[in-house]
């Protein structure tokens, strides 16, 4: 996927576009390779933002499933975000994130032409893209942004991709067109029935597996959604991969904060993941760990809005 440069990377469905030679000495030693300028910003829904940021070294080596750590401002927390697209020719990466906490709002408040303070990546183990046969790609909420590059890569690897995407309501549904391009078939669900079919993505998935053979399932979205998908696919014997995003600090295996229990063993999401066998994940402990800073997140939001 990183050999040929398509004519217009913007139009290409490839996850990685362009050849780029950023890893040559001149790129490594050019201070501008480490200045992370925001090139584009677009609101996909009221709270979901798509951002293109110049980061040639990251773009040159990123693979589907990998993430980066970003620190929008000097005083911000470092947070992990999945790399949605890597444009090698432009030396830029795309991130899609939902403004939920203080840090994502700080990031969302930046505009094209401004710099993010720090950005490091690509991190994590790339997705294991193989030819499975038929793959159900289930994305929920902003998780669709994480699902998209994987779905594209799976399709490119010759799989029959059936996309199932869902959101609470029509206005929160993102990347429908892109997911449609990446899938042979796309099923859209909304909780309130304002668009697509009414119901949960698991409803659509259970109808799909009754209708046809599904060889592998990818589920990326809120924790309860991934858990529900895994409960169902486990019963049906369909191997399922999930992408996890617990609390993280350094992202290189140093702090151990992102540990999750997988198959009874402690794994570090940042280096062993972020993708894991969903049937092996201990969802209860993961849920508890994800809530560790809930109160602090509220305080941080208050502190920021007080400043503004």
């Amino acid at each position, binding site marked *: 996927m990183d050999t040929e440069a398509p004519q217009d990377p913007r139009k290409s469905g490839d996850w990685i576009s362009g050849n780029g030679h950023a*890893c040559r000495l001149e790129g490594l030693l050019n201070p501008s390779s480490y200045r992370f300028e925001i090139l584009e910003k677009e609101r996909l829904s009221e709270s979901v933002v798509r951002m293109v940021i110049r980061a040639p070294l990251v773009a040159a080596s990123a693979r589907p499933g990998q993430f980066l750590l970003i620190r929008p401002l000097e005083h911000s927390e470092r947070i992990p975000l999945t790399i949605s697209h890597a444009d090698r020719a432009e030396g830029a990466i795309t991130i899609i994130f939902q403004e939920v906490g203080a840090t994502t709002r700080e990031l969302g408040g930046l505009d094209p032409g401004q710099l993010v303070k720090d950005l490091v990546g690509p991190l994590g183990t790339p997705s294991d893209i193989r030819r499975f046969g038929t793959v159900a790609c289930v994305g929920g909420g902003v998780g669709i942004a994480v699902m998209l590059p994987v779905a594209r890569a799976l399709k490119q690897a010759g799989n029959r991709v059936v996309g199932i995407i869902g959101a609470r309501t029509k206005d929160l549904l993102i990347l429908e067109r892109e997911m449609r391009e990446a899938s042979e078939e796309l099923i859209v669900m909304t909780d309130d029935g304002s668009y697509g079919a009414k119901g949960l993505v698991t409803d659509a998935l259970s109808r799909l597996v009754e209708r046809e053979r599904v060889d592998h399932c990818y589920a990326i979205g809120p924790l309860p959604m991934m858990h529900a998908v895994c409960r169902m696919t486990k019963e049906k014997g369909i191997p399922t991969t999930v992408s996890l995003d617990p609390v993280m600090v350094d992202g290189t295996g140093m*702090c151990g904060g992102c540990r999750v229990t997988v198959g009874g063993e*402690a794994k570090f999401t940042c*280096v062993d993941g972020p993708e894991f066998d969903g049937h092996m994940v201990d969802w209860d*402990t993961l849920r*508890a*760990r994800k*809530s560790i800073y809930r109160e602090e997140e509220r305080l941080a939001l208050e*502190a920021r809005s007080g400043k503004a």
Partner: protein
Amino acid sequence: MAKRERKPRTPMPEQDPQARARNFEEVALGYTEEMAVEEASRCLACKNKPCVRGCPVNIDIPAFIQLVAERRFKEAAEVVAQANALAAICGRVCPQEEQCEKYCVMAKVNGPVAIGRLERFVADWAREHLPQNGAHPQPAPDAQRVAVVGAGPAGLTCAGDLAAKGYRVCVFEALHELGGVLRYGIPEFRLPRSILDAQIESIRRMGVEFYTNTVVGRTFTIRQLLESGFDAVFIGTGAGAPVFLNIPGEELNGVYAANEFLTRVNLMNAKEFPVEGTPLKRPRRCAVIGAGNTAMDAARTALRLGAEEVTIVYRRSREEMPARAEELHHAEEEGVKFQLLTNPVEFIGDENGWLQRMRCIRMELGEPDESGRRRPHPVPGTEFEMEVDTAIIAVGQTPNPLIRQTTEGLAVEKWGGIVVDERTGATSIPGVFAGGDVATGAATVITAMGAGRRSAIAIDEYLKAKRAAT
């Protein structure tokens, strides 16, 4: 002479324990000029210099101490700087009692000469009294290039030494700030940030280029560095992967690896949350498992964050504790408690996954194990529970796996360390050297610096041979 020998070690002024246990200011305040001269006058200037043998970077210790005794501080600083670009750091964090001072002839008389304190004094004196913006020779346009991976003590020393030899040196660091463990691991009350910044700045002024936010092994590989025109690479990525206890309940909220706890506070400044964005659960009743310097740092940091009670839990006895005597002493003075011959067996949480208690068992010591320390055994029927909301695990670290996983042809040990020639740091790949914790396992700042220095010498020889061959 006889009169001189009987003088005791000059004590170093320190912040009052009660006060300092609640602030992050430096604990030890350093010698005044008079104190330094007095302490330096205790040195016997032994001809055979036993102290130098105990110094991993071979500072000419008697020479600089004699200069201090003569109040020639500038020259003393120059002698130290010749061997050690990071003297202000080493004077603060080296385990001197096991190195230079251990071999001091005065040790048997009235306590060894306070070599570490004097090193700190001359480094601090130089920073305060000498211009810090003097011109340094910069690398020639056709200088050979060396990439240094990791800006911790090993990498910084190697980079500084190679720059002094005229090479163009580029340091790549994964985090957004420089210093490695000196920044994320060692708290401000032991190593003020201004000292660290000044030491790094002095290396930058020698022409060393620093690139942060770069994870070698992910952003680009060792192989790509060699293919991109670097003539040699030094790997000093440290031992950053935390070891856990593998006991039930370790996933509970409130159970931290010391690395995470210290990184949140030291690197990300979590003590200023929410003005700073990185949160941390403030410990109330805190147990720190382990008894090395990292354990002491974590315990004393927990106190400073306002914990009511902090207890070091260690499975052996006081004699086996690996921490520096001075750090142990400081922790005790500040009110850290100790549960020795005690080992945790389970963390117990509430229904929401939060740590509530820690079940422990008493230990007794048996025969020595391969580390030479007496092996601890649990005493049946002695289990008890401690009420804790925070547990910090500080029982060691293993080398970060990224480089070994992404560098084809790099020979590694079973335990994950990179295989190196002990004398040179040469790895199984020509032109690639490694040193510090990534090669030796978790050790001290100064042993990592010693490795960086030895590799700098070996890289110089390698590059001279390489240039001669072309």
